[in-house]
């Protein structure tokens, strides 16, 4: 089963702007609402990355705790809460994978930077939309096997293009072509209106 129903539910829930504002006021109920809105999306994402129920539970807890502790730096007027929460969740899981296989220090700074709340300012606040998610999934399924693998290695294993090149035993130039072509197809499917 895909996650469209949960995205649909998220879309019809309270706006992220109001939710973020309540979180910044340390409203515990807002945290419950945040979990109800994004808990499943984050769990499924983290579970896909770490493939272990117990670890996924720990990392979901860590994700929401991190959001709670850092939400003061989040601009609720201009920021997109969903993409930020999802990025924090992915980073926790990728950080875990890296720590397990000894890749932990190389890109630690980049991961930390990539979830800075300031980065998520000036995005449409209700950015996640089930219709666009359906279209993106259809576009993803049209990618070639190698392009799909590159996307999965990037998003769900946190590999850089040179690491993909080693893993897939393909020249770096070939990997870059596959990654760029795949990302362009996905980006084009979402269109300019997604931002």
């Amino acid at each position, binding site marked *: 089963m895909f996650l469209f129903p949960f995205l649909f539910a998220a879309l019809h829930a309270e706006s992220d702007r109001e939710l973020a504002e309540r979180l910044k006021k340390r409203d515990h109920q807002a945290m419950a609402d945040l979990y109800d809105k994004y808990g499943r999306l984050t769990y499924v994402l983290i579970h896909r990355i770490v493939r272990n129920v117990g670890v996924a*539970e720990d990392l979901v807890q860590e994700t929401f705790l991190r959001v709670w502790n850092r939400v003061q730096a989040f601009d609720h007027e201009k920021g997109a809460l969903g993409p930020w929460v999802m990025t924090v969740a992915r980073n926790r899981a990728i950080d875990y994978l890296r720590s397990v296989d000894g890749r932990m220090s190389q890109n630690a700074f980049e991961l930390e930077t990539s979830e800075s709340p300031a980065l998520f300012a000036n995005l449409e606040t209700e950015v996640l939309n089930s219709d666009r998610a359906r279209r993106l999934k259809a576009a993803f399924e049209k990618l070639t096997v190698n392009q799909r693998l590159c996307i999965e290695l990037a998003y769900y294993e946190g590999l850089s293009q040179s690491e993909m090149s080693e893993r897939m035993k393909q020249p770096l130039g070939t990997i870059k072509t596959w990654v760029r072509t795949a990302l362009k197809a996905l980006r084009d499917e979402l269109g300019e209106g997604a931002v």
Partner: protein
Amino acid sequence: MTCEELRGDYELLALGILDRSERAELDEHLSRGCSECTSALRRALVTNAYVMTLPPDVPMPRSLRKRVLASIGAERRNWRWIFYAWGAVMAGVLLALGWFSFDQRSNTQAVVSFLNASDTRQIVFPQGRVFVNATRGVLLLASNLPRPGAGKTYELWVISKGGAPKPAGLFDADAQGNAVYMYKAPVDLAQTGAVAVSVEPASGSQAPTTTPIVVVHL
């Protein structure tokens, strides 16, 4: 490079996986406020958020909501849970005492001096505690470990920063998944990023062959 040529890299930048050599030019465009690149980065964040929703749904533990809310103090503490947790801790202590009974004097003294040492650090994780000491090693107290299965056991790993996991011994748990294990060897704490536990063949492994069930960052 032109903005158009850089455009394909923004998703990777936002994921924190762009190779360092490729990052410099993007940083340069962004730092001088290039509007085309700033817009491309925003778009990349959105694309990334959607790609993160692609994995198929999986059953979700119902108890997780309560646990997440408890972590910020939003759920009233469940005293029955604390009672059971305390029982598990006491069971762990008794197990530890039993484990050390075959050579009580030396092992008990080793544990007590380990725990009392001023330079012993304690890290709490959801299933227990890890104590680390640069000269004495690692002491693991864990509960609710999943059963390893026939012919399997648990293996402790010391993971250095940027290095491979190093085997730190095999251990068992009781029927309830409680375990106490002490790895007696010096540990370079400045260079150690984490300790982990994985399920391995009873003879042990030189590198983890399964996804670790416990990872504790130091």
